[in-house]
C-alpha cells in the first residue's frame, strides 16, 4: 500500500460515488423517474476504480451495458451523467444515449455499449492510438460477454497486431440469469484468454487494493511491452441484472452474504483504518460529501432542460 492519503481518499471517493449513484438510481427507477433499461454496477466498484486510478485521459476505456461505474471511475461528470439518465438535453450525451450509451470521449471513455461483446474490438483500435503515445486501452467485459465471437476476435487481433489492450473480465458469476459455469464451457475464462497468447492476471474484484496492485503490474507490463494482457476480477453484482429482475437464480442467502462479506467499501474502510492510513472520520466525511453530490445531481437533473422534438435530428452527421 504505497498510496498517498490523497490517493486513498480519491479512490474511496470514486467507489463511494459509484455506490451512491447506483443506490440512488435504484430508488429513482422504482419511483418511475427514469426511463429505459438500466443495469446497475453496485458491488463491482473496486474493479472500475482499481483499474482507472492508473489511467490518464490519453488512456482509453470501453465499457458494457453496465457502464456507470466505468464512467465515474474514468472521470465523467457525475451531474451530467445524472442529467443524461433523466433524459435531459444538458446530459452527458444530450439525452440521446441514456444508460446503455453513456460516454465521454473527451475523458477517454469510449462508451457504455448495449451490444454485448461490441466493446472489445473497438478497444483494439483505441489500443492502436494508445500504442503510439505510450498509453493503454482497456476493454471491460463481463463473464457473459467473453463468449461472444467479437470478444474472441478482438483478443486474437490484439495479440497479432501487438497492441497494448487490457481485456478486463469482471466475473460477477452471472450473465443475466445464467451462471458462468453453464455459459463458459472452459474451466476458466482467464486461461481461455491466455491461450490466445496473452499474459494473464487475476485479482479479487471486491478488494480495491488487490485490483489496484494487480493493475499496476499489468499496465506497467502493457505500456512497456506494448502487448495485450487479460485480467479476471472476481466480483459481485448487488442488484438484479436489470432493474426489475426478481433474481430467482440466486442461492439462498446469497445476496445477504455478498453484501456482508464481499463489499469493497467495507473492505476498504477496514483495511485503511486498521493500517491507520485514514480514520473513520475521514471516510465519513467523504460519504457525506458524496451523498450531497448525488442529491445535487438528482436535483439538478430533475430541473434540467428537456430536449425539444427538433433535437431528434441533431448530430447524426457532422455534415450531410
Amino acid at each position, binding site marked *: 500500500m504505497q498510496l498517498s492519503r490523497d490517493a486513498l481518499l480519491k479512490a474511496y471517493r470514486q467507489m463511494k460515488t459509484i455506490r451512491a449513484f447506483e443506490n440512488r438510481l435504484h430508488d429513482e427507477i422504482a419511483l418511475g423517474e427514469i*426511463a*429505459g*433499461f438500466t443495469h446497475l454496477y453496485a458491488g463491482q466498484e473496486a474493479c472500475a476504480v482499481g483499474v482507472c486510478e492508473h489511467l490518464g485521459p490519453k488512456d482509453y476505456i470501453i465499457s458494457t451495458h453496465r457502464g456507470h461505474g466505468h464512467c465515474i471511475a474514468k472521470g465523467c461528470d457525475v451531474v451530467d451523467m445524472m442529467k*443524461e439518465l433523466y*433524459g*435531459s*438535453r444538458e*446530459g452527458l*450525451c444530450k*439525452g*440521446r*444515449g*441514456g*444508460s*446503455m*450509451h453513456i460516454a465521454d470521449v473527451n475523458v477517454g471513455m469510449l462508451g457504455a*455499449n*448495449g*451490444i*454485448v*461483446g*461490441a466493446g472489445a474490438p473497438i478497444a483494439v483500435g483505441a489500443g492502436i492510438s494508445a500504442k503510439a503515445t505510450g498509453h493503454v486501452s482497456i476493454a471491460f467485459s463481463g463473464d*457473459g*460477454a467473453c*463468449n*461472444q*465471437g*467479437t470478444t474472441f476476435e478482438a483478443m486474437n487481433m490484439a495479440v497479432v497486431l501487438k497492441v497494448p489492450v487490457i481485456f478486463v473480465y469482471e466475473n460477477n*458469476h*452471472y*450473465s*443475466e*440469469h*445464467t*451462471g*458462468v*459455469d*453453464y*455459459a*463458459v*464451457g472452459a474451466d476458466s475464462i482467464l486461461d481461455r484468454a491466455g491461450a490466445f497468447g496473452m499474459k494473464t492476471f487475476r485479482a479479487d474484484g471486491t478488494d480495491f487494493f488487490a485490483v489496484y496492485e494487480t493493475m499496476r503490474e499489468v499496465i506497467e507490463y502493457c505500456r512497456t511491452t506494448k502487448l495485450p494482457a487479460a485480467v479476471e476480477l472476481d466480483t459481485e453484482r448487488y442488484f438484479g441484472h436489470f432493474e426489475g429482475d*426478481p*433474481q*430467482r*437464480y*440466486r*442461492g*439462498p442467502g*446469497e445476496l445477504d452474504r455478498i453484501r456482508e462479506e464481499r463489499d469493497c467499501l467495507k473492505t476498504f474502510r477496514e483495511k485503511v483504518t486498521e493500517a491507520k492510513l485514514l480514520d473513520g472520520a475521514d471516510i465519513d466525511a467523504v460519504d457525506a460529501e458524496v451523498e450531497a453530490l448525488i442529491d445535487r445531481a438528482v436535483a439538478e437533473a430533475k430541473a434540467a432542460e*428537456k*430536449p*425539444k*422534438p*427538433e*433535437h*431528434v*435530428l441533431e448530430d*447524426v452527421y457532422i455534415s450531410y
Partner: protein
Amino acid sequence: MAIKMIREAILETIDAEMARDESVIMLGEDIVGGNGAPGGPEAIGGIWSTSTGLWAKYGPDRVIDTPISESAIIGAASGAALTGKRAIAEIMFADFIGVCMDQIWNQVAKFRYMFGGKSTCPIVIRMVYGAGFNAAAQHSQSIHAMVTAMPGLKVVMPSTPADAKGLLTQAIRDDDPVIFLEHKALYAVKGDVPDGEYLIPFGHARHVTQGDDITLLATGMMVGFAEKAAKQLAEDGIGCDIIDLRTTSPLDEEAILDSVERTGRLLIVDESPPRCSLATDLSAIVANKAFASLRAPIEMVTAPHTPVPFARELESAYLPSPDKIVTAATRLMSYKRG
C-alpha cells in the same frame, strides 16, 4: 375463444407445437434462465416470459439455453433444421441481428437455393423489436425492411394475439425459414384468441377497417396507431381502409392494389427510418402497378433518418404517432393536382 395477451398467445403456441411435434426444439439466451446458477433453472422462461415452463415440460434437449453467441445460436438452430429438426431460435432484441446477420442472410436464407432445392431448413427466428421503451439506439430498432429485402426469408409481423397464434403456428410448421417479429410494446396487448388449432396462411393481409378515401398500410405497433388516427379522421368524414400486412414477405399485393384502386390515395405508416424501407417498398409497388388509380402523391409517415434516441421527448418525436398520421392524411385529402 379466450382473451389473451400476445405474449401468452406466443407461449401457448410454442407449447402446443412442441407437444404436437417432437422434432421442434427451441434455443436462445436465458429462455430457461438460471442454468448453472445456485438458484437453479427457473420457471422464468426468458426476459419476455415467452418460454415460461417449457424447459420443465420438454427438458434440456429441446429447450436449450445458450451462451451469448447469437451467430452460434442461429447456426445451431439452422444446422439442426437442415438435419431433421424444426428449430425456433430466439434473438432477445432484433437489434442483435448485427452480430448474426451472416448466419441469417448468407446461410439460412440461401441454403435451399444454393443447394439446388435439395435442402429444407424449417427454422423460425423470433426477434423482439421496436421502440417505445426508451431503450435507445441499440434496443429499439425495427429491422423488418432489412429482412424483407433478403430473398429466401419469410417475414411475419403480428399485431394482435389471434394473429400471433395463427401466424406463429404457420411459421413453425412452414418448411421455409421464417423471421417472426414480436413488438415489445405489443406483448401485453389483449385480444380474442381462437381455441384449438389455428393457422393463418402467409401472404394474406388483414383488412382492419373499411373506408373509401385513403388506403392506410401498417404493420405491428403502427396498426394500432393507424386505427386511432382513422377514428379521428372519421370525425372529419374521411374514411380509411386500413390494411395490416401481417407478413411483409410474402406480401399481399392484391389486397394493397385492390384498396388503392378503390381509394386512389395511399398513406404508409412505418416505424423505421425512411430510406430503403418497407414504406418505400410499398410505395414503389403501388407507383408501378396502380399508378393510374392514384389521385395524389403517396404519403409516408416514418421515423426520421436518425438512430433511435433515448429521452422520452426525443423518442416520441422519433416515432410515428396517430397525430402525425392524421396530419399526413389531411394533407393527402387536400391535395389538388396543380
